[in-house]
């Protein structure tokens, strides 16, 4: 039943009869959040692989500055660079997160379905088709620096539709969490991951429409020939600038932090202390990301104003919630058992990398703070040119650390909930190799670009000469990072496809205290055979059901 009406007593026990339609028809017409969630995750992983391979190609082009070797000209290089970064975010990482939330949020709130089930399915198909059209628009010489006007317009329309579809999926997720919770499940008792999905969804719904508005303006600019040539269309890159920089980019890290908290307490058998504090920290990180993103107001075609006080405060303050969340997770690890497996290692690595990313991003705040001091005191302060990082490749390094950390968190989460999603576990050894490749890739991308920023490489994409020696070497390090990350994405794809088609162990490897663990793996149609009963309130913050030995699997197969 699509949840579009007020829940009644009968709703929670109503069962949906399994469909007898052929598999393909079932796939195309389903409104079951579990199938839709799986499709989001698998598609996201595959597109992330494609985007990282493309980013690796543009990375190799950066190894030799001053000439264009792998691509036809600078315009094509810019398009490829833009396609890699855009697809990685809106075709890979965000869809994986949306997929996990679509699958898990209804289960975690004890609902039999996602709100607006048909809408959730429509959001997926719209996103998938418009992503394909987006790629075609790039191939047809559209996008930033595009040479064919119609293809550029198609790029704008397709990108706008991609974002719109993601917004609609977020509406379904947020509505489910806000309105379809089982009786007694108060907001402060939500699992950290569910709360994080809610913050992620609300933040996306407040930020992404601004991006759609910017795309609408870009459409008018191109139609009316205000952006008439390739050079002028380079400014289209600025459409996504603000949302892909810290702290606005912490938007994608919020669900990963929430999932990491749940994974840590499930794997170690020790719930994190101060559950409400953890929820508050996730919410505060969301507020900081939102405050920074509102800076994109009026930012049409202009670079981000790094001297903005809200942005500086946002970057400085964002370190604190990430640090505290990591501390809470480590506290559980310290007092519980420590299994060395992909979910736990992936979660802790992603939190640590996010902390590194947020800490390194502080360096870029020295310049505006010094500028402020100069303005207030009226005296000139000598600042090393190496610390003039804003407007340089430095921010791409920070982006690398945050996106890479999010990817590692997704790897951990997919491994943790794989049995719940497909009824079979993913290969843990392959998962550890995936994490290793992902870690190397993230660090190489981050170190390469941060270092290049220190040496004065301008914000990407750039084909330029006259840069300090060492920039090309650091660009090579970043390119190797992309290859490594693409390798990690390939291994994850292989692991997921193998499990989805019947590989992997049937034995449920672990359990947890949240409601998704109180049904079979994967859950039946309607999710729960009987209305789920909440564990005692104390178990949310103290040890009880968390980490209980896995019960005999009631798996229904893949």
């Amino acid at each position, binding site marked *: 039943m699509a*949840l*579009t*009406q*007020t*829940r009644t*007593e009968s709703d929670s026990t109503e069962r949906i009869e399994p469909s007898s339609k052929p598999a393909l028809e079932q796939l195309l017409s389903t409104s079951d959040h579990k199938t839709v969630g799986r499709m989001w995750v698998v598609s996201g992983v595959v597109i992330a692989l494609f985007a990282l391979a493309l980013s690796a190609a543009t990375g190799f082009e950066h190894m030799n500055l001053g000439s264009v070797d792998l691509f036809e000209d600078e315009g094509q290089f810019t398009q490829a660079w833009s396609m890699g970064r855009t697809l990685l975010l809106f075709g890979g990482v965000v869809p994986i997160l949306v997929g996990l939330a679509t699958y898990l949020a209804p289960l975690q709130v004890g609902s039999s379905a996602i*709100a*607006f089930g048909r809408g959730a399915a429509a959001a997926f198909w719209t996103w998938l088709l418009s992503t394909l059209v987006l790629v075609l628009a790039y191939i047809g010489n559209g996008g930033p620096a595009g040479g064919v006007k119609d293809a550029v317009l198609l790029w704008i329309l397709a990108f706008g539709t991609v974002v719109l579809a993601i*917004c609609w999926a977020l*509406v*379904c997720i*947020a*509505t489910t969490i*806000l*309105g*379809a919770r089982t*009786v007694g499940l108060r907001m402060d008792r939500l699992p950290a991951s569910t709360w994080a999905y809610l913050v992620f969804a*609300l933040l996306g*719904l*407040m*930020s*992404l*429409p*601004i991006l*759609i*508005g*910017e795309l*609408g*303006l870009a459409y*008018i*600019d191109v*139609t*009316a*020939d*205000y952006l008439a040539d390739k050079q002028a269309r380079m400014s289209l890159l600025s459409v996504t600038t603000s949302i892909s920089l810290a702290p606005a980019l912490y938007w994608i890290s919020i669900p990963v932090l929430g999932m990491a908290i749940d994974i840590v307490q499930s794997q170690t058998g020790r719930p994190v202390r101060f559950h409400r504090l953890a929820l508050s920290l996730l919410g505060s990180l969301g507020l900081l990301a939102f405050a920074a993103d509102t800076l*994109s*107001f*009026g*930012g*049409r075609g202009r670079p981000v104003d790094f001297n903005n006080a809200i942005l500086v405060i946002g970057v400085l303050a964002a370190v604190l919630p990430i640090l505290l969340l990591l501390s809470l997770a480590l506290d559980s690890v310290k007092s519980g058992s420590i299994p060395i497996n992909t979910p736990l290692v992936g979660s802790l690595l992603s939190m640590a990398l996010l902390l590194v990313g947020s800490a390194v991003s502080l360096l870029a705040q020295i310049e505006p703070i010094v500028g402020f001091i100069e303005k207030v005191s009226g005296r000139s302060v000598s600042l090393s040119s190496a610390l003039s990082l804003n407007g340089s490749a430095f921010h791409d390094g920070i982006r690398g650390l945050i996106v890479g950390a999010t990817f590692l968190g997704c790897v951990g989460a997919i491994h943790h909930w794989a049995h719940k999603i497909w009824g079979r576990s993913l290969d843990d050894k392959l998962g550890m190799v995936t994490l290793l490749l992902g870690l190397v890739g993230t660090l190489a991308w981050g170190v390469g670009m941060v270092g290049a920023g220190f040496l004065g490489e301008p914000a990407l994409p750039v084909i330029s000469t006259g840069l300090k020696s060492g920039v090309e070497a650091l660009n090579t390090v970043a390119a190797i990072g992309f290859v490594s990350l693409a390798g990690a994405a390939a291994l994850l794809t292989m692991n997921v496809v193998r499990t989805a088609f019947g590989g992997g162990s049937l034995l449920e490897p672990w359990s947890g205290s949240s409601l998704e663990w109180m049904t079979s793996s994967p859950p039946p149609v309607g999710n729960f055979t009987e209305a789920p009963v909440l564990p005692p309130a104390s178990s949310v913050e103290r040890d009880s059901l968390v980490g209980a030995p896995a019960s005999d699997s009631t798996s229904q197969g893949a």
Partner: protein
Amino acid sequence: MTDITIFDALPDTVVAPEPTRPRLLVIGTALVAGAMSMGMAGLLGIYVESRAAVLAEGGVWLPSGVSIPLTQPNMMAITLVMSVVAMAWAVSAIRHDDRANTYIALTLCVIFGFSYLAQTAFLFEIMGMPAAGDDLGRPPLIYALVGAHLIIMGVATLYVVIMGLRTLGGNYSAKDVEGIYGAALFWNVAVVLYLIVWYAIYITK
């Protein structure tokens, strides 16, 4: 005098009623309306900043030969305010299971919505703002902003029509007013957005 304890009358099997759950359609509508408002706020921010930048340089915001009359925007504002009254009438009627009045109020609302769309088209006609051109120097942001609001009003009108038809089909009554509440919420947000556009564009010019 005998003590009477009314609770004695309750049998043991009585359980507490299920708490009232929020309405999913209303929640979803509120989220969409919030997202929509953020999109409009973003566009408005760009409009106000661009206008302020031009004026700060001593320029003129509206191109020569373009004038924005006030009569039509004011009439549009009055039309939409009247539609809010009609929508409140529809909500009140459905809550009292007064279907006849619900249909009349919803129909009025849709007529007001179409009136707004027609008046905007007429305003564009007489305003004479070019869509592009060398003498313009910058893109006409007014079309982006008003156009976005036109889309929102179109969606709001469609929402009201669908909910009206569903009411006609018996889906909504005094026992379940969720659809009409949702439509009313969306409609009212759309009207508030127009009032902001009205002030930012038509009044301040």
